[in-house]
């Protein structure tokens, strides 16, 4: 076990669930610290400064959203929230409040690993210089310097807004982007509620980039939450 392996804080009040997450993480050589309550979680986060936090939204002592907010006051650590189905509202609130991605119970170990990997990679990437050319799968190539997009070798013309939308998604590749985040990044603050524009431009983008927009490979919709650029394809 090397010091360089990422340290993950698992905040979950159910011992069995915590155990499962710990085993899953440790089997992939992550180092794990645990917390059963929000207060404990904040203490742990302060004393160990973990590389990532896996946070259950249904904690007994504090709202998961409040924990996110408290952590974000001083830390940019990637936060992965776990919630039950049907809690779309709290998911969106947590994401808008600074969480990086979410998982819905029940989830598989593979899903957890993939999400965590993306979050860690994203956190690392933001500290590095941006790459000039980005590839999404085998089909889409984006040249951020020349502002050119090629789909299956052919150049596709995007409107400025479409381009901005695409780059916002690319920057957060693999992670969910809430409607609000996208709107703020593309249109700027103050437009956070013009969801219909976003939907229309998203559809246009999908039609331009996807082979079958009704079964998208990259530009995936997360109903009720936002969009995700699937980078692992």
């Amino acid at each position, binding site marked *: 076990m090397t010091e360089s392996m990422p340290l993950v804080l698992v905040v979950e009040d159910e011992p069995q669930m915590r155990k499962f997450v710990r085993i899953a993480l440790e089997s992939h050589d992550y180092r794990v610290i645990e917390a059963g309550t929000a207060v404990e979680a904040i203490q742990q986060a302060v004393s160990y400064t973990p590389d990532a936090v896996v946070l259950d939204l249904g904690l007994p002592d504090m709202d998961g959203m409040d924990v996110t907010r408290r952590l974000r006051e001083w830390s940019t650590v990637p936060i992965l929230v776990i919630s039950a189905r049907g809690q779309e509202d709290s998911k969106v609130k947590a994401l808008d409040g600074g969480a990086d991605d979410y998982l819905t119970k*029940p989830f598989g170990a593979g899903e957890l690993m993939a999400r965590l990997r993306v979050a860690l990679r994203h956190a690392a990437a933001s500290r590095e210089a941006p790459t000039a050319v980005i590839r999404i799968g085998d089909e889409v190539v984006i040249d951020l310097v020349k502002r050119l997009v090629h789909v299956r070798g052919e150049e596709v013309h995007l409107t400025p807004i479409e381009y901005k939308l695409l780059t916002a998604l690319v920057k957060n590749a693999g992670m969910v982007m809430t409607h609000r985040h996208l709107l703020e990044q593309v249109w700027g603050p103050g437009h956070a509620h013009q969801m219909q524009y976003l*939907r229309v431009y998203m*559809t246009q983008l999908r039609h331009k980039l996807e082979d079958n927009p*009704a079964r998208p490979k990259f530009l*995936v919709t997360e109903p009720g939450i936002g969009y995700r650029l699937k980078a692992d394809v």
Partner: protein
Amino acid sequence: MSDTERRPDPDELLARVREQEQISARGKLTIFFGFAPGVGKTYTMLEAARGEAEDQKRDVVVGIVETHGRYDTGSLLIGLELLPRRPVEHRGIQLDELDLDVALKRRPQLLLVDELAHTNAPGSRHLKRWQDVDELLGAGIDVFTTLNVQHLETLNDVVAQITGVIVRETVPDAVFDTASEVRVVDLPVDELLERLREGKVYVPQQAARAVDNFFRAGNLIALRELALRRTAERVDAQMRGYKAAHGIEESWHTGERVLVCVSPSPHSARLVRAARRMATSLHAELVGVYVETQVSLRLSTEDRERLAQNMRLVESLGGEAVVLRAEDAAVETVRYARKRNATKIVVGKPTHPRWLEVLRSSFLDDIVRKSLEIDVYVISGQSGGEAVAPAPPRPETRRALELTGGVAAVAITAVCTVIGWYGFGQEQLADVVMIYLLGVVVVSMRYGYVPSLLAAVLCVLAFDFFFIPPYYSFAVSDLRHTVTFAVMFLVAVIISHLTKRIRDQADSARGSEQRTASLYAISRELGLAPSRDLLLAAADRHLREVFGVRVAVLLPGSDGMLEGTFAEPGTLDDADKDKGVAEWVWLHQRPAGLGTDTLPSARALFMPLKGARGRVGVLALYPSPETRLGDADEQQLLDTFAGLIGSAVERTQLAEEARRAHLRAETEQLRNSLLSSVSHDLRTPLAVVTGATSALLDEHGPKDEHIRRELLQTAHEEALRLNRLVRNLLDMTRLEAGALKVHEEPQPIEEVVGAALGRMEDRLRGREVETRIPAELPLVPFDSALIEQVLINLLENATKYTPAGSPIDVAAHAQDGVLEVEVNDRGPGVSPRDAERVFEKFYRAHEGEGGGVGLGLTICRGIVAAHGGRIWVEERAGGGASFRFTLPLEGQASVRVLPAPEERESEAR
């Protein structure tokens, strides 16, 4: 032998126990009873109250006490809690009344209320203070009060006779008799007169003259005797009650009844009081009877009112008021007396002159003759008290009718004369007489009694004038003709009389026919009304037609509070005030409001609606200009109506309860089937997971890595299935609890289809999935998470019930204001028989094929319905099932999706 033991009659014992219970629940009434003002009732009462407050530490509050500025009385009030009075402004005079509501709210153990006979100021809840006291006692509050003998209802007229002063404020004897305690406050007459001279007796200014008459030694002695005797009677009654309670032989037999003949006469009230006294001394029941005959139809409004008053008096004196209908009043009275085992009949002395009896039979004579073994008491009608009301002015319409009748009488006489003149001449007198008589018959038939009498007179005169020599003069030459005149006149009068009688009978028959018809109509319609609202509407219509009133009905709501369930426009406007009256009626189960003694200032008459099982609601009747509620007949009919409506409303309530019980039973059954279904469906995957994992944990379990992996795979799949089952169950619960919130936002259906397909990726593996979604589809408002769920459920069904590897396609198109989405498969399809049932809860077309609980499609239907759409299944051309649902496009004009030339089609792996 136990028979010889003198045991109390069980019924009587039971009645006594009930009475005791009633008494213990009610507050105790103590009356300080005196024979005249100034004997010191209030003083004694206050003294007693102070004693209660000090010795037994009881919570004593003064409700209302008049000290009339007397120092010694006033000083007794010191240290006692005084309730604030309720100021009432009446004709510019400030009056202070007992504030009943404050008293009820304060709920002292003992309340002092002076002057029991006091009449409340207009606008108070009750007309009389004793009614206030009654309500206080009903609320369990003990009351001390004062009363003078002249205010007792039955002694009222005796006092009037003795003193010549008519006392308007009376208290029913029942209040006095049922009081827990009566304390006589006595003072020798000389001392009272002494006090009066010293100015120690309060005398209101306006009554000063009457008081001079009142406070005469003779009067006072008589009053004192009356008061003491009345108290003695009460004690006597108590002793008898004691005897009865302890099985002591009784000398009087029960079941005696005194029947009093009530009439519209102003003297009848006296008769009723006398009968009451007689009944009381005999311990007999009192029955007041009025027989409606033809005569009743001619009663003036005043007479009707007085009759109603007299009947009410019977009731207020604790008697039973009965209205009978018959041809002969005397026969009917005796028949009824016999039927009710009455032992005595009380009749008023006739007031009409004797000669009238020659023409018509005397009621009194008939009663006396026919009554046989029943005693008949004839009591003087005249008394000093009341004057005979002057003859009432006839209503205008009637006057007009009689005017036209008079004109007709003249005209018809003229016609008869002309016919006689030209048809028969002056010789055939017999024929001419016949013609005239025919004329009288016509007049009496068409225009009634008085015009026909006029016609009779005119005919005789005309006959004399034109046909009897000397002609054209009223003089008569032959004396024999006078006989002809007399006979002719008599025959004419008899004819008018008979005709009139026939008409009256017809009227009476028509009246009762109408009543019967309206009763029949309302009872039939109420019986047939399928719902409460229709029933109330029917009741309203009938009440409006028959009584000319506007109607509101108040029924208890789910919280037990009265609600205006039905209200015609213009009723229940002043909701708070009207509701207050209604609530009083609801609580006390007695009519109140307009025309009653309780809250008479209300805008409407409120009647309790009662059913077989108890109170049902309150009926409010608002008068309009054409309201007919005056006479006893109509009151009785109204009571019957109210009874019918009460039981009909109760019936609908019972039906509603039965329906609810049925529903509960059905829900219960459903829950049971859910439980059995759910427990099975949940247990199967659990059993597999448990089995597989325990096999893996077992140290003697399979060692082969391939088998171990297979077991793990199975456990994983079953866990996922369990997840789907639980998800469906939760969704269903949310749907049924109405907790499903639909966040509609305009969005492309394409996104949700894509998301659903993405989420189903694992299970769709190996199938061809085709999507046909035109790019130009408008944005449609829907909840993306919920519609995604619908699509997932439909896709899950498609993967579950079709052979592995068979293709699935998803399509959408817009038409007729809706977006239609279809999920098609190439499976066995859904038979038309099942087409509707597959959407029902727990219905599974294919039992136990790795399927769910049978909720997936039910949830789909619930979600689609919540969006205002519809879901169904069709047979697909070429085989398979086609599940389709629609979403309304409303708001589609907003933003359109990028137009693309053609539908995009694609094939999946």
